[in-house]
Each structure stands twice: as structure tokens, then as C-alpha cells.
């Protein structure tokens, strides 16, 4: 079995385990390459139709291309799309002056409200270990408590393919079916599956986005890679970090840990 097929099968197994264990489950779709790959893997896991909702967190600061791609893909794939948005914070003028506060309000809080409203007990997320040191510490099934916090000092054991069920005191489980994929794996898989992907990743006027977030806090990289093949070529020779263009990783060394402990993705 080749490497990509191995990664794919492991992810599908995890997706099916989570669907079996949890009654109310949804996939978080940020419109980026990883979560689009996640939604595609869910499609394959269930033979053509994702049997649960796909949640999009709208910060109000996303790129127009992301909204367009979202609507196009959701229709094409027949997704049950739920849009989560913290309208109250937006109306009060929340913006990226403080990244920790802004991400917490517009992403984490919006997600919390959405989970409460729909009663989800598990969420599938497309995070990967190689993205950030703090994500390298994650489990496939990761519990979040009442306060939505990640108890990273006391994670449950996870042996072989035995994933932990939810304990009573916990509010929901984060499921990470793509944890073992690397950035280059995702692109090679997109190439192999001929997956349609958000055009912001492809270079225009010598720049492209390598990681997507809010337009206020995401910077493009210098690049001439205008299609998937060229992106793969570029990654093979580049030594820049994938999230180098993401401001919330930089504010201080432990911002990502603080954000994630508070329930950030």
C-alpha cells in the first residue's frame, strides 16, 4: 500500500469510529486545504454523502474567495452547511487589535455558541501535527471540558486504534483524523484525488497564500506556484514554516498554547 493510501485509510477509520461513538457530530470546515481534504475523506468514508453537518465559522474578516468557494463546494457536494458567527462581538466592533482576544471571541466563542445551540458532542477538525509544536502534542480523540479547556497536562492514553469515548464531565471531543498528515502529503493527496481547492493558494502577481485565515491577520508568501504541481515542487525546496504568514502564532511564544487551552482550533 502506498504512503497516501495508508494515510487515507487511517483517517477514514478514525472518522468512522467517531461517527459510531457520537450521536451528534459535525466537521469543522474552514475552506482551507486541510479541512477541505477532511470533508473529502468524510465523503469517501460514507460512500459519497457526508451524514452530518459541516460547520463554517465566519469571523466576518475572511476573504471573498473563501465565501465563494464555500458556497460553490457546499452545493456541489450536497453538504449540510451550518454557519457560526459571533454577531454580538462583531456588532460591538471586535477586530484584530488584540489577536488573542479577537481569535477567542470571533472563532472560539462562535464555535462554543454553535456547539451549545446544536448540542454537538464531537467535532472533526483538520489539524495536523506538523503545523505547530503545540499541535504535535494532540491526540486523535481529544476531550474538552465544561469550560471548553484542553487539559494538555493530563491527556487520556490512546493505544493503537483504540480511541477514548467521552467521559461524563466533558462537554465534547475534538477528533483529529488528519493529525498524521504533513503539509506535502495533503498537497500530494489533492493532486492524486484531483480535488478542487480554494484559488487563494495559487500564485497571482508573484504571491500566494500558504495557510488561510482572516484577511487582516494572514500574509501571502512570495511565490510563482500557480497550480498544485508547482506548489508541491515549491514545498520540496522551501524551508519556511507553513504558518509563517499567520499573525496569531507570533504575538508571543505561547499565544498558540493559550489559544488552544481556551478552546481554539
Amino acid at each position, binding site marked *: 500500500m502506498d*504512503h497516501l493510501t495508508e494515510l487515507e485509510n487511517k483517517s477514514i477509520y478514525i472518522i*468512522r469510529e467517531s461517527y459510531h461513538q457520537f450521536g451528534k457530530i459535525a466537521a469543522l470546515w474552514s475552506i482551507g486545504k486541510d479541512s477541505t481534504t477532511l470533508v473529502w475523506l468524510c465523503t*469517501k468514508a460514507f*460512500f459519497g454523502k457526508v451524514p452530518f453537518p459541516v460547520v463554517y465559522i465566519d469571523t466576518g474578516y475572511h476573504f471573498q474567495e473563501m465565501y465563494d468557494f464555500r458556497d460553490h463546494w457546499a452545493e456541489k457536494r450536497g453538504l449540510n452547511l451550518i454557519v457560526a458567527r459571533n454577531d454580538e462581538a462583531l456588532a460591538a466592533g471586535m477586530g484584530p487589535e488584540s489577536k488573542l482576544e479577537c481569535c477567542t471571541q470571533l472563532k472560539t466563542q462562535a464555535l462554543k455558541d454553535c456547539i451549545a445551540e446544536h448540542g454537538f458532542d464531537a467535532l472533526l477538525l483538520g489539524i495536523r501535527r506538523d503545523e505547530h509544536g503545540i499541535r504535535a*502534542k494532540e491526540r486523535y480523540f481529544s476531550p474538552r471540558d465544561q469550560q471548553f479547556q484542553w487539559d494538555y497536562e493530563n491527556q487520556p*492514553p490512546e493505544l493503537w486504534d483504540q480511541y*477514548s469515548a467521552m467521559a461524563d464531565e466533558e462537554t465534547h471531543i475534538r477528533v483529529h483524523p488528519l493529525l498524521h498528515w504533513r503539509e506535502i502529503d495533503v498537497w500530494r493527496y489533492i493532486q492524486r484525488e484531483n480535488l478542487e481547492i480554494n484559488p487563494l493558494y495559487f500564485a497571482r502577481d508573484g504571491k500566494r497564500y500558504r495557510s488561510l485565515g482572516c484577511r487582516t491577520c494572514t500574509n501571502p508568501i512570495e511565490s510563482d506556484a500557480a497550480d498544485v504541481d508547482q506548489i*508541491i515542487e515549491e514545498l520540496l525546496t522551501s524551508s519556511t514554516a507553513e504558518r*509563517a504568514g499567520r499573525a496569531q502564532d507570533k504575538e508571543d*511564544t505561547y499565544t498558540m498554547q493559550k489559544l488552544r487551552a481556551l478552546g481554539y482550533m
Partner: protein
Amino acid sequence: MAAEAESLAFVMVGHIDHGKSTLIGRLLHDTDSLPEGKMEEIEEAARAEGRDVEFGYIVDHLREERERGITIDTAQTFFSSKTSGRDYVIIDAPGHKEFIKNMITGASQAEAVVLVCGVFEGVQEQTKRHAYVVKLLGLDQVMVAYNKMDQVGYDQARFLEVKKDMGEFLGRLGVQPTLEVPISAKCGDNVALRSENMPWYDGPTAVEGLDLFRKIPSPTEKPLRFPVQDVYEVDGERVAAGRVESGVLTRGQALRFLPGDQLLRVREIVQYGRDGVERAEAGECIGLVFDQADEVPPRGRVGYPEGEAANMTDRFRGTVFWLSPAPLEGEGAGLTFKCSTQEQPCRVAAIRERIDSGSLEHLPADAGRLEETEVGELVLATDGPVVLESFYDVQELGRFVLLRGRHVVAGGIVTHTQDAAV
């Protein structure tokens, strides 16, 4: 497109403070595997906190880990060997006894082991415990890295002394190291670059040692086992979804599903986006449609080739590593046994042996309990029948966890699928 590189996962184990995280940092640094700006970021974090730059910071990412100078949880990082072209997944495991569940979590995902032993202290309690655990988990490719050679003046005599102790201990476990290499992760000796400080050593470097690990073949050659994971309705048809755990499954094949003894013929192997799939091998997630359309086996049933005798049992022996601070007492009220997709309430019928995993000493088994980090040879009895294999025959159906309530409290392997009456 270039040929796809092979990928191999290894776990880094050993006693607290013997330099596991530092070795990982050094490996990444000396093989040019760090992203641009990573070293600068670490230097800045160290400066801000008024401490020396540590290679361990690369993997010890939690603030608590850096402040205490220890690894708390297992992490995974990636690097590519320039010499072999192979991709590696490095699984870092904490060396503290209190984080043993995190160490086992990491080790259960690995194919090979790097056992790090600081030569100043030599073989310590967690060195032994970790070696024992990886052996239990069936990992038999072990490279020993004798670290901190700089602290003993690169002294060959000290290296040989620790190597002798280690050899005696590993010998008791039946582990034959693939390589034993003297290194200094801090100074970079014999990690990726050959050391000039130890002219008496002319063996491979640690990175070359990694390239000696063999890729564990997928269990395609073993007999077919197909546990049902779930049943879905697809276009009006009921499909039994699952992963082929071992062997090869072919279209048209007759399978016996146990428990329940259903004999069913595979009409179709379903994979999204593919038509006319004729076969599926170990590791593939598929769906099955049967000739007998209304007899779809539920989750937990295991498909066997027709005519093959099955190891169906409700009383068997296993070696169990206890992971919970709350000990096993007596029969272990409220335990659940989970193996593959099978799940059954179970009780401990007998504790045959009780072993201290840090010293390998046998403890009194008649006390009727098993404490955290202890290993037990148990007789387990499940309420209903389960289909098992000895771990040494088919790993995928020979490894299990025990849950109490909804928490995993132990991990184990099946040593005997039947227990002759005790």
C-alpha cells in the same frame, strides 16, 4: 514526480533527563530539517526567560515543559534522511514515571525504538521500564544511543561499562539491539555527523542507525480477518463497513462472521470512486455487500474465511500494563474489554503474575491487586464470546484495552486465546 519515499515511525524512550528531546532537536538541526526562523524563535524564547538555548525546546513546546525542563506529553515530528531518502516520524516520549501513559501512547504508534541512556547515570529505573514496555508492545528493533559522552570526557571505558549493564538487562528481555552508538546530543557527536572526539568508535552514526531499521511489512500474508466497524445504508443497500485487519479479501469469497455464525458471500467490495473492486488487503477501509442482503453482521462481528477454525473465547490470558492511578482490585468491577471493534464487559478471573515494570521483579500476585505501572499476567473472562488471536500471530486482533467506565485504565496483549481451567 519523484518516487514516493518510505516512511517509518520510531519512538524515543529512556530515563528522565537522559536527553531524548535534546537528541530530537539535534537530529532535526543537523539534518537541516528545521523550518527557517525556528532556531531564532527558540533563542528568543530562551532569552526572554533568561535561560540557555536548549535543543529540547524544539519539541518541548508547552510552557510547563520548558519551565520544568522536562517532556510532559508525547509529540510527533517529521524529518527526512538525506542519506537513505527515507521519511521518519519521530515520536518523543516523556521519561517521567508519572507520564507513563503518554509514553505508552507514543510507543503504540511506533515501528522501532531509540533507547537513550545517559552514560553519566547509566541504566536507570525508567530506562528499564521503557525497554520492558516496548518489548511488551512487540517492538523488537531497538537502537541504543549512549548519550552525554561529553560529560565523561568521551571515555571509552565508561561507555563499555554502561553498555555491559545495558546488555545484561536487555538480554533478560530477549532484546538484541540493532546498533549501540556513543553520542553527545548536546555537542552533536555521532548524531548526524561523525565525532572526532571518539576515534575508538568506528560504527554507524545515529542517523545511519535509523536507516538500519526495517519497515514492518503490513500483515497481508496473514490469514484474513475482517471486523465489522459499522453498518451504513448506501443507495438503499446495507453495507458492512470495516477495515481488513490482516490478509486479503476477494470478491465472491464466502466469509463466516463470528460470534453469531453467519455464512455470507461477498457480492461487492465497495470503495467510493472505484468500480468493480476485486480485492482488498490488510489496512484497507472498505464496505461489503453480501448476496444475503438482509443478513448484514453488526459492529463487533469478525469475518473469517469459510472453513477456517476460529479462536472464539470468553476466557483467555493476557499481559496487561496498568495505566490508572486507581489500582485493579479483585475482579475489577465495571471493566470493559475492547479489542478491534469488539467490546464486552469483563472481569479478572485470576492474577497469575505481578511484575514491577521498573525492576522486572515479581511481586506477590496473591494480593489481588495491580497498581499503576505494574504488569500483570491475567486471566480475563468476558460476558459474551470474543474472537481473538495471540498477539504473536495477528497483532491487530491480539491487542486490547481495558476501560473502567469510559476511561482507558490498561493496555494489554493476548498471550493465550484459551485458558485451560485453573
